[in-house]
């Protein structure tokens, strides 16, 4: 498909998603279901990955300090900066693009190929609102996931640093508090809100407008992951330039 046309239909899809809303009692239960699936269901993997990434950042930093003039608190400082600025919001989002994104594309895509979406439309239901809107709303809780990823990442760094014998706890904590700029956290949350929207909508787009059968559902999930990651990476660059540049 040609890119411009895709961007056009993506924009139309977003507009349609907010039209002709589904009855609130039904929508409420859909939103709760998506929160459970998209947010709660991703906690485990996010916590696991954040913990080890934080640990690795701490070890890497420690191993690269050979100069005795560099203060030991750099380990804590570097862990905090990398986790808050990049690992928690961006790296986690790429993981989510894989986990949540492929779930969204394949579940909506399966509904497309088995004509369940046609069935919704025949009944007079706005299928986009019914399927995509609750996912967008659920993903608004994503910044909480990122906050947890930040906390666990730093915790992982502290454990690796202190128990690995690279730093004392006091040095590490001093590093954590060194030159702290609260706006960095704001920047990180702004990014995560944007990424949340991307993770909810791009995979939905690939599922909703797919053609073909079961085989194509698999292909659509792959393509959707590639595009979601590409857009996240590009938006990451643009937002960094805008907010920190």
């Amino acid at each position, binding site marked *: 498909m040609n890119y411009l046309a895709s961007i056009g239909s993506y924009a139309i899809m977003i507009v349609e998603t907010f039209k002709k809303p589904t009855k609130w009692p039904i929508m409420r239960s859909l939103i709760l279901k998506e929160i459970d699936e998209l947010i709660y269901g991703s906690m485990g993997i996010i916590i696991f990955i954040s913990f080890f990434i934080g640990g690795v950042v701490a070890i890497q930093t420690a191993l690269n300090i050979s100069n005795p003039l560099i203060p030991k608190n750099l380990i804590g400082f570097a862990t905090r900066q990398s986790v808050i600025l990049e690992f928690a919001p961006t790296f986690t989002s790429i993981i989510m693009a894989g986990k949540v994104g492929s779930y969204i594309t394949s579940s909506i895509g399966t509904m497309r190929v*088995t*004509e369940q979406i*046609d069935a919704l439309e025949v009944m007079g239901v706005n299928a986009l609102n019914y399927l995509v809107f609750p996912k967008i709303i659920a993903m608004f809780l994503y910044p909480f996931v990122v906050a947890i990823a930040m906390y666990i990442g730093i915790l992982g760094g502290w454990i690796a640093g202190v128990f690995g014998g690279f730093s004392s706890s006091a040095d590490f904590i001093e590093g954590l508090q060194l030159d702290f700029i609260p706006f960095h956290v704001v920047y990180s949350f702004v990014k995560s809100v944007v990424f949340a929207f991307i993770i909810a909508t791009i995979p939905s787009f690939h599922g909703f407008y797919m053609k073909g059968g079961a085989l194509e559902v698999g292909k659509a999930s792959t393509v959707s992951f590639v595009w979601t990651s590409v857009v996240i990476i590009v938006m990451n660059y643009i937002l960094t330039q805008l907010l920190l540049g």
Partner: protein
Amino acid sequence: MIEVENLRKTFGDTEVLKGISTTFEKGKTNLIIGQSGSGKTVFMKCLLGLLTPTDGTIRYEGKAYSEMAPEVRRDLRQEMGMVFQGSALFDSMTVEGNVMFPLDMFTKKSRAEMQERVDFVLHRVNLVDAHKKYPAEISGGMQKRVAIARAIVMNPKYLFCDEPNSGLDPKTAMLIDNLIQEITEEYNITTVINTHDMNSVMEIGEKIVFLKNGIKEWEGTKKEIFRTDNEAVTNFVYSSELFKKVRQMYLEGKN
């Protein structure tokens, strides 16, 4: 009543429907027959508005679909029931949930009223002990029946069935045919059925439209289909020896 005038549908370079005109009558089972790939499903999806015709008009009770405002279309949609070729049940919901879905979505009925209606239609399609099962846990024939129950739960004025009995054993197939015909008469519904099942044609073909290569090759009733000289029809309908004999006997009996 649904009137179709010069309906065309093309996908890219391929013209699937090449100008079809016909009417589907109220209170009757209207059949669309034709070989696999002849455009039956595309035709039905155009009628439903799931596909936009390239050209031509479709009128519901005299009003052209293409000229209706979005709200009017929406209201019309709620008067339609559709049984898809592959049933298209929502696989995240139980049988009961599937049938209740349109009621829950579009009516202000209480739980108890909805439950009563659901039990009634499920009973109507002879499904009494599958309420809490999921579509993946029931047989294809049961899925078809759930799909029919879901299609009629809102008391539709128009019922569309895309091969409602394909892949079913002859007995269940006939049960479903008879069920659809009964409902059609009972509630005075305009029913359109896609099929290539000859038993259905003979059983419930109150009006038959024969499609071939995207054009309407022939139309008539099940009685007329016995007598027609149209070679394309006879080749299609009487492709089996058994049906050839039946026709022979019928024609001999008449003369």
